[in-house]
């Protein structure tokens, strides 16, 4: 049965649209997404809401899903995500190769970390399958796969030692930030753009906040004053972000990552800003649904079908980048690209629901 329109699906739909737009860099609509006035962007929102959605799988506290069924569903979801990642990566590689041939431009073969695929295929294909080689802008889903792989552990911890879940997650995050522990990439030396050791905290926070007990219950009881605290954090950091009023990163004390602003490690300042933003967004939803019900319905449909929409959006954003290069940017091209992309995404969401009927 189709879920009722709700805040989680609505914001996830928004995150999907924002990711699609942001992944066509330099298009004119990029400047209207919230990343321009926010330290965090749609990636945090997407991962947080993925954690939140875990509640539907785990079940209610008074009626928990049997453990074996839970494990089966979560691992199954991880496999589905993995297959989706393989499919869109393969399509992206073919698109880059086709663009290189059609436009007689070998630059496309080196774009978005594709060089290894074309010039070092033996090792790169192994890396692709192991998720240790990721294409640029196609690196959120590998994180999601890892998060879904650890989801059974999260669910079990929550079931049998609920008070230990957040401390364990936070300890892993802190250790990773303090000691700059990353997950390496291969065969191209580097590190995962989204460090799963850090991003797992956002996922766990999303799950914990979704629960009526524990941290989630505490947040619900204290949401009024939390929102009051959130306002100056979000506004202050937006001003600093807009006017680049940041401190010198080489002058901060050790361990430096604690005081830097970075996406890979989702550093503490970025994390705090994101949580403050979430507190405010949760207040905004009732007003939005009242004023713009059709808009909420539209985004919620995208959010309900996040995987197909995300996959098609990833491919469309790469197509948009190629088309922009071939035909030039500007208001008309960007409007056609973004507009037609959003229409296609809505059709994908509609088809996904139509299939389930």
């Amino acid at each position, binding site marked *: 049965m189709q879920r009722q329109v709700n805040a989680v699906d609505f914001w996830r739909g928004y995150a999907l649209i924002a990711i699609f737009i942001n992944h066509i860099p330099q298009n004119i609509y990029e400047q209207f997404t919230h990343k321009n006035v926010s330290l965090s962007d749609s990636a945090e929102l997407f991962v947080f809401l993925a954690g939140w959605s875990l509640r539907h799988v785990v079940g209610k506290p008074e009626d928990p899903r049997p453990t074996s069924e839970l494990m089966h569903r979560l691992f199954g979801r991880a496999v589905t995500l993995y297959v989706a990642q393989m499919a869109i990566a393969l399509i992206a590689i073919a698109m880059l190769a086709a663009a290189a041939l059609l436009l007689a431009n070998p630059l496309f073969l080196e774009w978005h970390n594709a060089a290894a695929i074309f010039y070092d295929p033996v090792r790169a294909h192994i890396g692709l399958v192991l998720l240790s080689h990721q294409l640029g802008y196609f690196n959120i889903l590998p994180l999601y796969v890892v998060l879904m792989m650890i989801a059974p552990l999260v669910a079990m911890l929550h079931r049998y030692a609920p008070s230990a879940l957040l401390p364990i997650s936070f300890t892993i995050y802190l250790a990773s930030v303090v000691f700059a522990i990353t997950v390496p990439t291969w065969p191209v030396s580097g*590190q995962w753009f989204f460090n799963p050791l850090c991003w797992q905290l956002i996922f766990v926070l999303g799950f914990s906040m979704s629960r009526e007990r524990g941290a989630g219950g505490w947040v619900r009881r204290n949401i009024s004053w939390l929102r009051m605290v959130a306002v100056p954090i979000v506004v202050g950091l937006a001003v600093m972000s807009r006017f680049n009023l940041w401190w010198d990163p080489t002058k901060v004390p050790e361990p430096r990552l604690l005081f830097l602003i970075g996406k890979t490690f989702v550093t503490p300042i970025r994390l705090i800003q994101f949580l403050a933003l979430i507190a405010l967004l949760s207040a905004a939803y009732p007003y939005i649904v009242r004023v713009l019900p059709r808009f909420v319905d539209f985004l919620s449909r995208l959010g309900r079908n996040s995987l197909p929409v995300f996959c098609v959006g990833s491919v469309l954003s790469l197509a948009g980048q190629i088309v922009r290069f071939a035909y030039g940017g500007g208001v008309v091209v960007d409007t056609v690209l973004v507009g037609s992309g959003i229409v296609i995404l809505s059709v994908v969401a509609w088809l996904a629901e139509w299939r389930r009927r």
Partner: protein
Amino acid sequence: MKTATSIVGLLCWLVAAGVAGAQQPPPAAGGTPSSIQRLCTEGTEVGFGPAQLPNAARALRERKQLRVLAIGATPLSARDQTQGHYALVEKVLESSFKGLDVEIIDRGVSGELARDGAERIKNEVALVRPDVVFWQVGVADALALTPANELKQTLVETVRWLKVHQVDVVVIGLRYRRSLARNEGFQNIRKVIRDVVKDEAILRIGHYESIEALDRVRRQEGEPPSEFDLTDAGSNCVADFLSRALAVGLFKKPRGEHGNAGVPAPSQK
């Protein structure tokens, strides 16, 4: 005395390589490994800009160690497969200068625009504390149609920030593409990078010019290489060009001074 001998020897080697490259037509791109190797070692113009690398030179003098931060897409070619691109640069530099320890920390994100790379550079400098940054920049901006003035502002601000923080920069700019030789956007990006390199007196790897010269000569000879051959030749030589440009930057005499730039005496093997 030994230092002077080493420097003179190094300069002689560089000059000889340059002269040899200038006198001989570039070898075929996409040809035999030996012909590519010749292009890599004999390419005439690998380093551009009146640049020195004072901070890298100081590191060499005081620690005999060079710490390099690599930002931007990692150039890759068939030749690099066993070790990786920057491993090859490390190897070339370390084998050229006795006692030199080079560590390259690769923090490249392929497809990243200069504006995003510029943000990350500051954090990575704080974390890695490099003596020099290899910044591969321009390709993603050319493909994303970044306005030239926006790119220029980003480059100037970042280079100046790095200078203030006593970190040298080596820019690895665009590579030659025949199909883009008359592409206005691509050439604008190239011009911006060249202008910034000139104005800020930093080092740029001139592989665009080397491959362009190769293409020109081969076409004059009636044997134009394909775009993909040129790409392969360019990729194969980046490590060599980078190593040689770095050597030039490290041991270049400062303007208005005599003697070397205070560089220690890594005797050339």
